[in-house]
């Protein structure tokens, strides 16, 4: 029963991926565009208002600064979580080994 479910899900995903490939080969119209509204504002005014050469850095730190603050919070939380679980692993090993030696 589990094997049949896994086989059907796998075949369905492969069919979806093949369909995406065929669709994108024949209708790849993404590369030709004239003017997008948000990108043209960043390209025109980004280096004038901040006088920095890199447009991607001005987007990341100036126009979308709160997203970068949230991303740094996620990185900080992940590092703290890894340290919390790792410290528990060290202490558990030592307690287990002393218990086996005494018994």
């Amino acid at each position, binding site marked *: 029963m589990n094997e049949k479910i896994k086989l059907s899900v796998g075949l369905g995903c492969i069919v979806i*991926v093949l369909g995406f490939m065929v669709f994108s080969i024949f209708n790849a119209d993404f590369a030709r565009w004239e003017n997008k509204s948000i990108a043209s504002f960043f390209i025109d005014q980004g280096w004038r208002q901040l006088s920095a050469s890199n447009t991607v850095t001005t987007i990341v730190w100036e126009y979308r600064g709160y997203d970068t603050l949230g991303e740094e919070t996620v990185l900080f939380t992940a590092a703290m979580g890894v340290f919390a679980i790792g410290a528990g692993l060290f202490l558990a090993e030592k307690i287990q080994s002393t218990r086996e030696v005494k018994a």
Partner: protein
Amino acid sequence: MIYEAYLAVAVLLGIGIFCITYKSNLVKKIIGLGIFSNGLHIFFMAIGYRDGSINPIVTPANIQSFPLYSVDPVPQALVLTSIVIDMSVTALALIIIIWVYRRFGTAESKELENLRG
């Protein structure tokens, strides 16, 4: 031509889904998750491409024609945040796999299914 980028994206997505569903070891599933995320990031950045363009950095040579011949810089900034979040998820998943191995003695999903109690 831009068709090679979408072909590579489809191959990467297929390999990622295959590794997540058909492999039994837990570490190999995390590797498949990383491959799937990389394929998705490449697709998201290949959308903003323009035919015959330059990178979005202003230099003294191209300050006149910069608004006409530049690539879309917005998806690059969003993918930068997504890469960092994917790395944090992978780090937490790996330390949890180490904890599972110390607690149950095995790291295969086929044997973890049959545990009771």
